[in-house]
């Protein structure tokens, strides 16, 4: 080759390419005759990439399951095709991803995403205007507070979880020890979901209702550099249990290690958290099973009784140590869309949306993927959902409440 590829020509080409790139939609030319397209937007790069990947593992598995079992029967065995878009690390990228999906694929019939509440808020601003039914596991109340008609929240909202977590924790404590806890400690960061959770406890009457007295109440701005002052307060006040609301793993690790250092771990002060990150494999890797043993956390969705075979299949397929909320919801959302397509009997987004609004599923893969029936109210929130509690037991977070869905018996860590 005579022509020298100079740095200049490469850069010029790159710059030019950016200018004239005629619609960056060259992928996905594998259109088949009978497919129905659904979408998933998830953070596949950036700080939340891992969660996005877990979601994707679940949804990929669901698509494979559906297609290998004969596709959508009501549509003559049509296969499901799932299109992924990266929400990246900002609301702007998430919104762009949604707009791009809709522009490139006007034939979408539904979708799911985008994990982080603020991403979901931005994405649904686009999907709502396009009247595309959209499922999400995000917790924020704002998602279904906007009067949107095409957004369906499969997780119980953050406020509801905040209201339900404490009464359930107290029930667990009473059942295990015969004593009702009287005092609570709260350590939280000031990011979106802990703040709304904490607000419900303090201003929303969450503490008063269950008669708990907050003897430690600390809010910090992540990242935490030293947990000593926080944990020192716990040591002197000795609450009956400690509510830990952190959203970043390093902060969580610092608090747990400091508790151990102050001899408050291993149940001296029982720990209760909220949210799926408290059950992530990464937490196990960084903190280790010993410090985690006994840690309870409330969560929207967690592997339950009746899913044993599914859990094993997921672990085998992905190599993950255990199934979590993200993989489960990724699977479940696709399953819900599939059921909606069966009910609608047409690859039409308006009919799919209507089918989701009216569905009431108690059996089948979709219903099995979530606690409680798949039934949405006017706002797009699921009805009759129980609060799930999981607990770290011997290095695995297992569902311990409600009893009928539990895979293990809970224990209230005590001295």
């Amino acid at each position: 080759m005579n022509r020298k590829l100079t740095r200049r020509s490469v850069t010029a080409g790159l710059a030019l390419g950016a200018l004239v790139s005629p619609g960056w939609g060259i992928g996905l030319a594998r259109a088949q005759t009978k497919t129905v397209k659904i979408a998933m937007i998830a953070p596949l790069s950036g700080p939340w990439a891992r969660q996005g990947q877990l979601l994707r593992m679940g949804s990929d598995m669901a698509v494979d399951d559906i297609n290998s079992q004969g596709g959508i029967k009501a549509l003559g065995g049509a296969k499901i095709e799932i299109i992924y878009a990266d929400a990246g690390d900002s609301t702007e990228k998430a919104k762009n991803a949604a707009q791009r999906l809709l522009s490139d694929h006007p034939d979408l019939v539904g979708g799911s995403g985008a994990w982080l509440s603020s991403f979901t808020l931005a994405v649904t601003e686009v999907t709502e205007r396009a009247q595309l039914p959209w499922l999400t596991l995000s917790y924020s109340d704002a998602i279904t507070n906007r009067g949107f008609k095409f957004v369906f929240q499969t997780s119980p909202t953050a406020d509801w979880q905040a209201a339900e977590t404490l009464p359930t924790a107290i029930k667990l404590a009473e059942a295990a020890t015969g004593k009702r806890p009287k005092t609570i400690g709260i350590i939280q960061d000031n990011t979106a979901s802990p703040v709304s959770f904490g607000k419900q406890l303090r201003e929303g009457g969450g503490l008063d209702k269950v008669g708990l007295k907050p003897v430690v109440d600390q809010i910090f701005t992540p990242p935490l550099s030293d947990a000593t002052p926080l944990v020192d307060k716990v040591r002197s006040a000795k609450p009956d249990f400690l509510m830990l609301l952190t959203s970043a793993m390093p902060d969580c690790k610092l608090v747990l290690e400091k508790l151990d250092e102050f001899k408050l771990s291993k149940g001296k002060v029982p720990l209760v958290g909220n949210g799926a990150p408290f059950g992530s494999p990464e937490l196990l890797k960084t903190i280790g099973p010993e410090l985690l043993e006994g840690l309870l956390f409330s969560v929207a969705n967690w592997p339950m009784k009746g899913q044993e075979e599914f859990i094993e299949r997921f672990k085998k397929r992905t190599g993950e140590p255990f199934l979590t909320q993200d993989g489960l919801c990724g699977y479940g959302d696709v399953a819900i869309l599939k059921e909606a397509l069966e009910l609608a009997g047409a690859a039409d987004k308006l009919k799919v949306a209507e089918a989701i609004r009216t569905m009431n599923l108690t059996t089948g893969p979709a219903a099995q993927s979530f606690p409680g029936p798949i039934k949405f109210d006017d706002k797009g929130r699921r009805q009759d959902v129980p609060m799930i509690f999981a607990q770290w037991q011997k290095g695995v977070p297992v569902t311990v409440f409600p009893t009928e869905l539990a895979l293990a018996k809970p224990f209230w860590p005590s001295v």
Partner: protein
Amino acid sequence: MRTRAEAGRQRWAILGFAVAILVLSFVVLKSAYYQLVLTQVLLWAVLSLAWNLLSGYSGYFSFGHAVFWGLGAYTVALGMLYLDLTPWISVPFAALVGAVAGAIIGYPTFRLRGHYFALAMLAYPLATLYVFQWLGYQELALPMKREAPLLYMQFEDPRAYVVLALGLVVAALLISLKVENSRFGMALLAIKQNEPAAEAAGINTWRWKMLALMLSGAIASIAGGLYGVVLLVITPETVFGMLVSAQALILALFGGVGSLWGPVIGAMLLVPLAEGLNAELGDVLPGIQGVVYGIAIIMIILWAPEGVYWRVLDRFSRRAPAPNTPETAVAGIAVNVAPLPRAPAPLGGSLLVLRDVGISFGGLRALDGIDLAIPEGGLYGIIGPNGAGKTTLFNVINGFLAPDRGAINFSGEPITGLRPSQICRRGVGRTFQVVRAFPRMTVLENVIVGAFVGAPDDATARQMALAALDRVGLSAQSSAVAGGLTTRELRLMELARALVPHPRLMLLDETLAGLAHDDLDGILTVIRQLRADGITVVIIEHTMQAMVKLVDHFTVLDHGRLIASGKPDDVVRDPSVIEAYLGKKWVDRVAVSAK
């Protein structure tokens, strides 16, 4: 400063750009997605233009423009959520918020310079981010207004946002153009090149910097406000985050910092590139888009370190320096020296009087009990070995440093403690040890900067600058780019800049340093001519040779003290002077040889 015709051409270019964007939006691009990306391109371009207005022109790099962007976005979101305020009102109002924020931020931060300023600016968005988190505004969603969407800037047609964003870009470009073509822009450019020199040339640097930051903040805020309307969901991280500040900076640096079109070029290239990579690679190889983006930026910066705009301009325009042969230029000086614009002042009487002036830096007494009376109309030399306090003396006279004690009178008026620009306005001009030219500006433009002090309008400033160039014999080079000048020409140019407001006293700081013998004669001719024109000249040198031939009166400084003063021939024989320069041994030797 551009000529009127050039400014006119730029206005046509802006109009052409607007038409091109409208064609792109209404004719070429069909999907809502491309319209959304185009809107973002334009909004980021506005932010980058705002950044460029401050940092590109004045050289005060801001790592914190996200603070304005975020305040704009939150103004709109909070206005809509809590006051039901339509963005039609809150977006323009955001400009006011940005300007006020600029004033509040600028007041303490402009005490810092260089890297310290840049790092201090970094703190504002980060601090504000936490404030908004603490206030509980972690996630704000602008409510969907189904009943009156137009009243709340919620359009069905995405092209409406393109038009709004384009309006902002055009406004920002016109403002930038206006600034570039006025003394505002020249003042900022002068600050960028050498702030002390600008201040010494009579420019009130504090005022212009504050104005620039306020204007920049207003523009960034209004764009942030519209960004909030477009995105509909606002979190502190998205609008105050480090990435926003970086975006403003990267786009301008990439496109061409300090140029009108640089930020727009940067946004037009990088924003679609990033988004395109995200779309193409985001689901295939997540994260690789960031790598490719980074590599593209690095390669282009290697290829065009000053930005795409300047690189392309250098390549296609013939902005070669005007031909100048040293011989003709030197020969021309004597004849070219223009007649004095006013009558020479009579000799005698002290123009500048220093009484017991002293200043210390920590334990070092840089100046100690200086008493000096400089008569009007002479050529006065101050010499001394390195570190004797010569430049410090000049800095005290022209206001860079306030003396710890003592008093300075100029023309019978006390000037102790005044700002350099105020002292300049009273008739004290100065040059510097190291000439700092504005390399991309022409010689004439370089000199015009000095003319703003005395000129009521820009046209007069131009006339005065031309006259000053004529006086130093640089007329032939007036349209040459300063970057191509020789040391001698640079010295003359700086001299012209100091001469332009007709000073009564000129302080020349080592003007002769680093010049070849032939060049020296040319400069000496000009300096003598200044004296002949009635300007009092004080010149600093540390080499005696050239000075002995030149000056009427010598003052010798050593360790911050006056050690000798008098006629040049007498001073060079003074034992204390010889000791200061050569050491004790030489004093003895000179004494022996004199016998």
